[in-house]
Protein backbone atom coordinates (compact mmCIF):
# COMPACT_ATOMS: atom_id res chain seq x y z
CA UNK A 1 0.00 0.00 0.00
CA UNK A 2 1.27 3.43 -0.85
CA UNK A 3 2.07 5.60 2.12
CA UNK A 4 -0.07 8.69 1.93
CA UNK A 5 1.89 10.63 4.51
CA UNK A 6 5.57 11.12 3.73
CA UNK A 7 8.27 12.46 6.03
CA UNK A 8 11.42 13.77 4.43
CA UNK A 9 14.22 14.34 6.95
CA UNK A 10 17.73 14.75 5.58
CA UNK A 11 20.69 13.89 7.79
CA UNK A 12 22.34 16.89 9.46
CA UNK A 13 19.53 19.32 8.66
CA UNK A 14 17.45 21.11 11.28
CA UNK A 15 14.25 20.79 9.30
CA UNK A 16 11.86 18.23 7.93
CA UNK A 17 9.05 18.15 5.42
CA UNK A 18 5.80 16.25 5.88
CA UNK A 19 3.59 15.84 2.80
CA UNK A 20 0.16 14.34 2.53
CA UNK A 21 -2.40 14.00 -0.24
CA UNK A 22 -6.02 14.14 0.87
CA UNK A 23 -9.17 12.84 -0.82
CA UNK A 24 -10.71 16.17 0.07
CA UNK A 25 -11.31 19.39 -1.83
CA UNK A 26 -8.87 22.13 -0.84
CA UNK A 27 -11.51 24.14 1.05
CA UNK A 28 -12.43 21.20 3.29
CA UNK A 29 -8.79 20.45 4.06
CA UNK A 30 -8.18 24.05 5.02
CA UNK A 31 -11.34 24.14 7.15
CA UNK A 32 -9.95 21.27 9.23
CA UNK A 33 -7.18 23.66 10.32
CA UNK A 34 -9.47 26.59 11.10
CA UNK A 35 -12.63 25.32 12.82
CA UNK A 36 -11.77 24.80 16.51
CA UNK A 37 -14.13 21.86 17.07
CA UNK A 38 -12.79 20.04 14.01
CA UNK A 39 -9.16 20.66 15.02
CA UNK A 40 -10.03 19.29 18.46
CA UNK A 41 -11.35 16.07 16.93
CA UNK A 42 -8.49 15.12 14.65
CA UNK A 43 -5.67 16.42 16.86
CA UNK A 44 -7.26 14.83 19.95
CA UNK A 45 -6.83 18.04 21.93
CA UNK A 46 -8.89 20.66 23.66
CA UNK A 47 -8.67 23.88 21.71
CA UNK A 48 -8.35 26.62 24.32
CA UNK A 49 -7.76 29.33 21.76
CA UNK A 50 -7.45 29.47 17.97
CA UNK A 51 -7.28 32.87 16.29
CA UNK A 52 -6.85 32.10 12.60
CA UNK A 53 -5.45 35.41 11.41
CA UNK A 54 -2.15 37.23 11.04
CA UNK A 55 -0.75 37.99 14.52
CA UNK A 56 -3.30 35.59 16.01
CA UNK A 57 -2.33 32.86 18.44
CA UNK A 58 -3.49 29.45 19.54
CA UNK A 59 -3.30 27.20 22.56
CA UNK A 60 -4.19 23.51 22.72
CA UNK A 61 -4.33 21.16 25.67
CA UNK A 62 -4.14 17.36 25.74
CA UNK A 63 -4.78 15.04 28.65
CA UNK A 64 -2.66 11.89 28.84
CA UNK A 65 -4.01 8.54 30.12
CA UNK A 66 -2.75 9.42 33.62
CA UNK A 67 -4.77 12.61 33.63
CA UNK A 68 -1.78 14.95 33.24
CA UNK A 69 -2.42 17.94 31.09
CA UNK A 70 -0.01 19.09 28.39
CA UNK A 71 -0.30 22.43 26.66
CA UNK A 72 0.92 23.54 23.25
CA UNK A 73 0.84 27.03 21.88
CA UNK A 74 2.01 29.20 19.03
CA UNK A 75 1.62 32.44 17.13
CA UNK A 76 0.28 32.75 13.59
CA UNK A 77 2.52 34.85 11.38
CA UNK A 78 0.81 34.40 8.03
CA UNK A 79 -2.72 33.35 7.31
CA UNK A 80 -3.90 33.12 3.68
CA UNK A 81 -7.16 31.13 3.40
CA UNK A 82 -6.84 27.97 1.28
CA UNK A 83 -3.15 28.68 0.66
CA UNK A 84 -0.93 28.90 3.67
CA UNK A 85 -0.45 29.19 7.40
CA UNK A 86 2.91 30.15 8.89
CA UNK A 87 3.06 29.63 12.64
CA UNK A 88 5.23 28.75 15.59
CA UNK A 89 4.66 25.66 17.74
CA UNK A 90 5.86 25.16 21.28
CA UNK A 91 5.26 22.49 23.91
CA UNK A 92 4.86 24.24 27.24
CA UNK A 93 6.92 23.22 30.28
CA UNK A 94 9.37 21.13 28.27
CA UNK A 95 13.01 21.84 27.38
CA UNK A 96 12.04 21.48 23.71
CA UNK A 97 12.52 24.81 21.96
CA UNK A 98 9.91 26.49 19.79
CA UNK A 99 9.68 25.37 16.14
CA UNK A 100 8.61 27.23 13.00
CA UNK A 101 6.01 25.65 10.71
CA UNK A 102 5.19 26.56 7.13
CA UNK A 103 1.94 24.93 6.04
CA UNK A 104 1.06 25.07 2.35
CA UNK A 105 -2.28 23.92 1.00
CA UNK A 106 -2.62 23.16 -2.71
CA UNK A 107 -5.44 21.82 -4.87
CA UNK A 108 -4.58 18.68 -6.88
CA UNK A 109 -7.97 18.09 -8.54
CA UNK A 110 -11.48 19.34 -7.68
CA UNK A 111 -11.74 16.59 -5.08
CA UNK A 112 -8.17 16.15 -3.88
CA UNK A 113 -5.60 18.40 -2.25
CA UNK A 114 -2.13 18.34 -0.78
CA UNK A 115 -0.63 19.66 2.42
CA UNK A 116 3.08 20.38 2.70
CA UNK A 117 4.30 21.01 6.22
CA UNK A 118 7.83 22.39 6.42
CA UNK A 119 9.07 22.40 10.02
CA UNK A 120 12.26 24.19 11.11
CA UNK A 121 13.83 23.33 14.47
CA UNK A 122 16.34 25.24 16.55
CA UNK A 123 19.08 22.67 15.93
CA UNK A 124 19.79 19.36 14.19
CA UNK A 125 19.94 17.70 17.61
CA UNK A 126 16.53 18.99 18.59
CA UNK A 127 14.98 17.81 15.34
CA UNK A 128 16.43 14.33 15.78
CA UNK A 129 15.29 14.25 19.40
CA UNK A 130 11.72 15.12 18.39
CA UNK A 131 11.77 12.62 15.53
CA UNK A 132 12.78 9.92 17.98
CA UNK A 133 10.21 10.85 20.63
CA UNK A 134 7.59 8.31 19.55
CA UNK A 135 10.35 5.78 18.98
CA UNK A 136 12.14 6.31 22.30
CA UNK A 137 9.04 6.38 24.43
CA UNK A 138 7.57 3.42 22.63
CA UNK A 139 4.22 4.95 23.41
CA UNK A 140 3.36 8.40 22.25
CA UNK A 141 0.81 10.15 24.38
CA UNK A 142 -0.82 12.15 21.64
CA UNK A 143 -0.96 8.96 19.60
CA UNK A 144 -2.60 7.06 22.45
CA UNK A 145 -5.08 9.81 22.96
CA UNK A 146 -5.93 9.66 19.27
CA UNK A 147 -6.37 5.88 19.44
CA UNK A 148 -8.76 6.37 22.36
CA UNK A 149 -10.86 8.84 20.45
CA UNK A 150 -10.97 6.63 17.37
CA UNK A 151 -11.89 3.49 19.30
CA UNK A 152 -14.74 5.33 21.06
CA UNK A 153 -16.07 6.44 17.67
CA UNK A 154 -16.07 2.91 16.29
Amino acid at each position, binding site marked *: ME*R*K*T*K*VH*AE*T*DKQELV*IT*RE*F*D*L*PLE*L*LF*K*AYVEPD*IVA*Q*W*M*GTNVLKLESKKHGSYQFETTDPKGNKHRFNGVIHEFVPNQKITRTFEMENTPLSVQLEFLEFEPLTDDTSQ*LTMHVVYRSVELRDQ*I*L*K*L*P*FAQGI*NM*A*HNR*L*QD*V*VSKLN
Partner: protein
Amino acid sequence: MNLRRDVFQAIADPTRRAILLLVASHAMTAGAIAANFDTARPTVSKHLQILTECELLKQEQQGREMIYHLNATKMKEIADFIEPFRQLWDDRFNKLESIMKNYQSKK
Protein backbone atom coordinates in the same frame (compact mmCIF):
# COMPACT_ATOMS: atom_id res chain seq x y z
CA MET B 1 15.96 -1.83 22.19
CA ASN B 2 19.36 -1.27 23.75
CA LEU B 3 21.01 -2.25 20.53
CA ARG B 4 19.02 0.39 18.68
CA ARG B 5 20.02 3.05 21.19
CA ASP B 6 23.62 2.12 20.58
CA VAL B 7 23.09 2.54 16.88
CA PHE B 8 21.80 6.05 17.44
CA GLN B 9 24.77 6.87 19.63
CA ALA B 10 26.99 5.54 16.89
CA ILE B 11 25.52 7.86 14.26
CA ALA B 12 25.39 10.83 16.65
CA ASP B 13 29.13 11.36 16.06
CA PRO B 14 30.04 13.43 12.96
CA THR B 15 33.22 11.45 12.22
CA ARG B 16 31.35 8.18 12.33
CA ARG B 17 28.67 9.57 10.02
CA ALA B 18 31.42 10.67 7.64
CA ILE B 19 32.91 7.16 7.75
CA LEU B 20 29.52 5.64 6.90
CA LEU B 21 29.17 8.01 3.96
CA LEU B 22 32.63 7.08 2.69
CA VAL B 23 32.06 3.36 2.97
CA ALA B 24 28.60 3.69 1.43
CA SER B 25 30.18 4.36 -1.97
CA HIS B 26 32.44 1.29 -1.86
CA ALA B 27 34.10 -1.08 0.60
CA MET B 28 37.41 0.33 1.92
CA THR B 29 40.39 -0.72 3.98
CA ALA B 30 40.92 0.81 7.43
CA GLY B 31 43.96 2.64 6.06
CA ALA B 32 42.04 4.14 3.14
CA ILE B 33 39.31 5.30 5.49
CA ALA B 34 41.79 6.83 7.93
CA ALA B 35 43.50 8.69 5.07
CA ASN B 36 40.33 10.76 4.70
CA PHE B 37 40.58 12.19 8.19
CA ASP B 38 42.99 14.47 10.01
CA THR B 39 42.40 12.56 13.23
CA ALA B 40 44.95 10.03 14.43
CA ARG B 41 44.74 6.52 13.03
CA PRO B 42 43.92 4.94 16.45
CA THR B 43 40.98 7.35 16.79
CA VAL B 44 39.65 6.27 13.42
CA SER B 45 40.19 2.63 14.43
CA LYS B 46 38.12 3.24 17.55
CA HIS B 47 35.30 4.70 15.44
CA LEU B 48 35.49 1.69 13.10
CA GLN B 49 35.30 -0.63 16.10
CA ILE B 50 32.17 1.11 17.42
CA LEU B 51 30.51 1.04 14.00
CA THR B 52 31.36 -2.65 13.64
CA GLU B 53 30.03 -3.48 17.12
CA CYS B 54 26.77 -1.73 16.22
CA GLU B 55 26.70 -3.80 13.04
CA LEU B 56 26.63 -0.72 10.87
CA LEU B 57 29.87 -1.94 9.25
CA LYS B 58 30.93 -5.45 8.35
CA GLN B 59 34.58 -6.50 8.47
CA GLU B 60 36.21 -8.80 5.98
CA GLN B 61 39.83 -9.95 6.13
CA GLN B 62 41.54 -9.50 2.78
CA GLY B 63 45.18 -10.54 2.93
CA ARG B 64 46.85 -8.40 5.56
CA GLU B 65 44.20 -5.72 5.37
CA MET B 66 40.75 -5.49 6.93
CA ILE B 67 38.07 -4.34 4.50
CA TYR B 68 34.98 -2.50 5.76
CA HIS B 69 31.56 -2.77 4.08
CA LEU B 70 28.37 -0.94 4.89
CA ASN B 71 25.72 -3.17 6.47
CA ALA B 72 22.72 -2.04 4.45
CA THR B 73 20.20 -3.95 6.59
CA LYS B 74 21.28 -2.13 9.71
CA MET B 75 21.24 1.21 7.95
CA LYS B 76 17.63 0.57 7.00
CA GLU B 77 16.76 0.17 10.68
CA ILE B 78 17.97 3.71 11.22
CA ALA B 79 15.84 4.93 8.34
CA ASP B 80 12.94 3.20 10.09
CA PHE B 81 13.31 5.28 13.23
CA ILE B 82 11.31 7.99 11.48
CA GLU B 83 8.50 5.50 10.95
CA PRO B 84 6.69 5.96 14.32
CA PHE B 85 6.77 9.74 13.76
CA ARG B 86 5.39 9.28 10.23
CA GLN B 87 2.76 6.89 11.55
CA LEU B 88 1.68 9.46 14.15
CA TRP B 89 1.04 12.05 11.45
CA ASP B 90 -0.52 9.50 9.12
CA ASP B 91 -3.03 8.57 11.84
CA ARG B 92 -3.84 12.22 12.51
CA PHE B 93 -4.30 12.97 8.82
CA ASN B 94 -6.43 9.84 8.27
CA LYS B 95 -8.62 11.07 11.09
CA LEU B 96 -8.79 14.55 9.56
CA GLU B 97 -9.76 13.04 6.22
CA SER B 98 -12.58 10.88 7.62
CA ILE B 99 -13.97 13.73 9.75
CA MET B 100 -14.06 16.06 6.76
CA LYS B 101 -15.66 13.42 4.54
CA ASN B 102 -18.48 13.11 7.09
CA TYR B 103 -18.68 16.86 7.32
CA GLN B 104 -19.01 17.08 3.55
CA SER B 105 -21.76 14.45 3.30
CA LYS B 106 -23.77 16.12 6.06
CA LYS B 107 -23.88 19.31 4.04
